[in-house]
């Protein structure tokens, strides 16, 4: 019994590194945090930047788009979140989200879809101007990366 248990522990100890090597390596993890300068993105424009190998949308929303997002009652949402929860106070015009559809990871197309936000061409999910899922197979809103504003024009993601 004891011999078997010791053997099992040994086998597991050997197996774990063999599996763990599949996890993201140090060079991948090193890209965990980036800084991005927001000057030059005009109102109504959006850019896509790369963070940890993932595309990230940075959208400079117009007041009309913010208004549109805030006017939606929470009851209409599949994954209820207010617009305030999805942006940072004082920087409401900036919407920063990971650009992979929460269904199966495609990159949605900006400024399109039934809710003026994003439309995913793969399986037809529609997101609104706050990046919230409104229609289609995706279960969640577009994911927000951890970020904070270093200054009004500089944002640190990660």
């Amino acid at each position: 019994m004891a011999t078997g248990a010791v053997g099992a522990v040994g086998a597991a100890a050997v197996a774990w590194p063999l599996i763990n090597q599949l996890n993201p390596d140090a060079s991948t993890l090193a890209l965990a945090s980036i800084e991005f300068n927001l000057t030059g993105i005009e109102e109504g424009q959006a850019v896509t930047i790369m963070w940890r190998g993932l595309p990230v949308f940075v959208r400079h929303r117009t007041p009309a788009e913010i208004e549109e997002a805030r006017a939606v009652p929470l009851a209409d949402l599949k994954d209820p979140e207010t617009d305030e929860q999805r942006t940072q106070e004082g920087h409401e015009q900036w919407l920063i989200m990971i650009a992979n559809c929460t269904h199966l990871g495609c990159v949605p197309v900006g400024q399109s879809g039934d809710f003026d936000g994003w439309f995913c061409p793969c399986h037809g999910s529609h997101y609104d101007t706050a990046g919230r899922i409104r229609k289609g197979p995706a279960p969640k809103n577009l994911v927000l990366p951890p970020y904070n504003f270093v200054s009004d024009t500089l944002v640190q993601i990660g």
Partner: protein
Amino acid sequence: MSEHSTYQPGTGVEKWLDERLPVVRFAKEHLMDFPTPKNLNYFWTFGAILAIMLVVQIVTGIILAMHYTPNIAMAFNSVEHIRRDVNGGRIIQATHAVGASMFFAALYIHMGRNLYFGSYKAPREILYIIGVLIFILVMATAFMGYVLPWGQMSFWAATVITNIFAAIPVVGNPILELLRGGFAVDNPTLNRFFSLHYLLPFVVAALVALHIWALHVPGNNNPTGVDVKSSRDTVPFHPYYTMKDLFAIVVFAIPFAWFVFFIPDILGHPDNYVMANSQVTPAHIVPEWYFLPFYAILRAIDFNILFIDSRLGGVIFFAGSIVILLFVPWLDRSPVRSGTFRPLFKWFYWLFIINFLALAYLGAAPAEGIYVVLAKITTFYYFFYFLVVLPFLPMFEKPRPLPTSISESVLGKALP
């Protein structure tokens, strides 16, 4: 089917070898003398065709690996290098790529034959289950191989398919990162897919050996589904079936060659000639045709079921559509093996085949309008066939009388 060996070592060398490692005896018993029902039709040749296809894929694959570079910066161009610069590279590459499609074509026919003639029933359950495992491994291998050219379709196929695992509650995301080796599909993903794409075919080859072993214990099923009664029912495998299989293989090679030499890209997608770009998803991403039925099932579940959200639901049905195959020997309660003698079953069976093709069609169609509804209906029938038709149909069905032996059925057919 354990027959006494007829092998008599002729020379001293043969005798010496036979006492130490009886490979010649083994080959003679299993590849030449093996008693095989004499009434097998051409659907039975697809086993041999598949064995050859596996060899073709392994040989061409090993050659391609000699020239391919698994690195995201170089993979796309290295495949073009094979097509342009390597001697005969265009044809070897096309053979491998078209070969994957031909492999699946043969695989689906082989499986369709099995379902119709009830080859999965006792005493061939293990044989059948090994076959399903081979099918699953071949799908995994084909998927990973498709990622290697690192075109747009490669990249987005990898993204979408690995994302399926993220639907699993709690452990989904750690598994996703473990599979990709990063937060997105990237160089580590390509490298490990290459490694596994090279490995898995040999695992498949080992399973094929078990598959044939398991076949040679009870022997072949046959179109009547009636067990072999006497040696009058069988012929030796060689030369009867070696020649028949060889003929079928060469006929099968004709459309294969047609694709390779005249339309090597028609089974693929133009977008895969655009190098992978993680920031832009092509307007229509569609998997290779052989995954379409299962892809349609994945997409068909776009509603929540109780506490299970639509995405997890899709994944459960997707996985279920394959896992259910493992239980077919126990789901089917009919005492009669062959569909030939089951008047009602035939209808459900052909409806299942049409339904499967419809699923494939829907997998390629855009997810909108009538297609969404049809996808749900066809997904329903796919499961209905396995979960309701197979277990309960025998209660209502009166099978036609079975022939007492293979020989009788053969002679009976000869009469006007």
